[in-house]
């Protein structure tokens, strides 16, 4: 079956997985680049490869286990998890957009990580530096778990969505690795908060949709209602930036007046 013919759900699954994975891959690439630059590429790539092996094992074990869960229960659990996940991203993006939280700075993370790695002392064994390997392993595994969750969760909601979600994540992975190899420095120009805002909107809409399906709500227009949910979430996110911005401004004025 061609996933492009599956309609809005598959398109949103592809887009959501692509954007969310892109952000996670950028974060992992920053750390791997820092490790490789300071302590050598052999250790950085060894840690990355080990993490990818563990990730594949996790997906191979957990993926088929999900098929044993009844569809309605799976939709409800996955919907709730996606709702919590998406709303968390959207809330953070709102607060960053309103200037309440500092923006994510890949250059600053790269600088602090390279400084820490330069200070750390360790003896290499078999040509592999343990601190560098563990740092790359941890970073790729943690961000990879997020990517795996997004792909599995988005795809678990409906039949035929796995190819769309997996393709989105794969395209994002290839793109980020390609860019990292070409520019050889952190991808600092990525508009990360805008991406996180978009991911928050898409995943939250997906979360409401699957939670509703799991609760027995028959959405008008079925999959098409996802588009309406996305529009409402987008409007809510933009309103949230204004609300948080004006609330912060009111407090700042009060504090200054004291």
């Amino acid at each position, binding site marked *: 079956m061609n996933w492009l013919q599956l309609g809005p759900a598959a398109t949103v699954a592809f887009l959501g997985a692509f954007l969310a994975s892109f952000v996670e891959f950028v974060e992992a690439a920053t750390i791997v680049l820092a490790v490789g630059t300071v302590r050598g590429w052999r250790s950085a790539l060894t840690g990355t490869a080990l993490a990818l092996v563990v990730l594949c094992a996790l997906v191979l074990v957990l993926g088929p286990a999900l098929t044993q869960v009844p569809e309605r229960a799976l939709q409800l659990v996955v919907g709730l998890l996606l709702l*919590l996940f998406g709303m968390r991203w959207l809330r953070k993006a709102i607060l960053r957009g309103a200037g*309440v939280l500092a923006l994510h700075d890949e250059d600053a993370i790269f600088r602090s990580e390279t400084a820490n790695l330069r200070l750390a002392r360790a003896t290499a064994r078999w040509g592999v530096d343990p601190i560098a390997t563990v740092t790359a392993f941890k970073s790729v595994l943690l961000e990879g*778990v997020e990517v795996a969750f997004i792909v599995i969760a988005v795809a678990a909601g409906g039949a035929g969505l796995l190819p769309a979600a997996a393709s989105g994540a794969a395209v994002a992975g290839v793109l980020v690795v390609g860019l990292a190899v070409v520019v050889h420095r952190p991808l600092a120009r990525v508009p990360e908060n805008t991406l996180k805002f978009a991911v928050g909107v898409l995943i*939250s809409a997906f979360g409401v949709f699957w*939670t509703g399906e799991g609760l*027995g709500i028959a959405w008008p227009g079925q999959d098409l209602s996802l588009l309406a949910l996305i529009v409402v979430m987008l409007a809510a996110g933009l309103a949230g930036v204004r609300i948080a911005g004006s609330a912060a401004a009111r407090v700042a004025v009060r504090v200054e007046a004291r």
Partner: protein
Amino acid sequence: MAILRAILGEFVGLFVDDGSLAVALLVWCAVVGAAMKLVPGLPAAGSGVALLFGCVAILLVNAGRTAKLRMGKR
């Protein structure tokens, strides 16, 4: 072991950043689910609208409150 703990912490952190937001969303979903069970004549579209706009309201209230708290601490 420390890596496993970090991964577990990171996994929980995927869904829960501000505990009150997570709890409020889960409670609201439970309320909508219970209402659908207890009131059989409830229109499905109405439940969908209630679910969606309840979640949106929770997000907006949380964002506004967090902004106030954060700026008050600066």
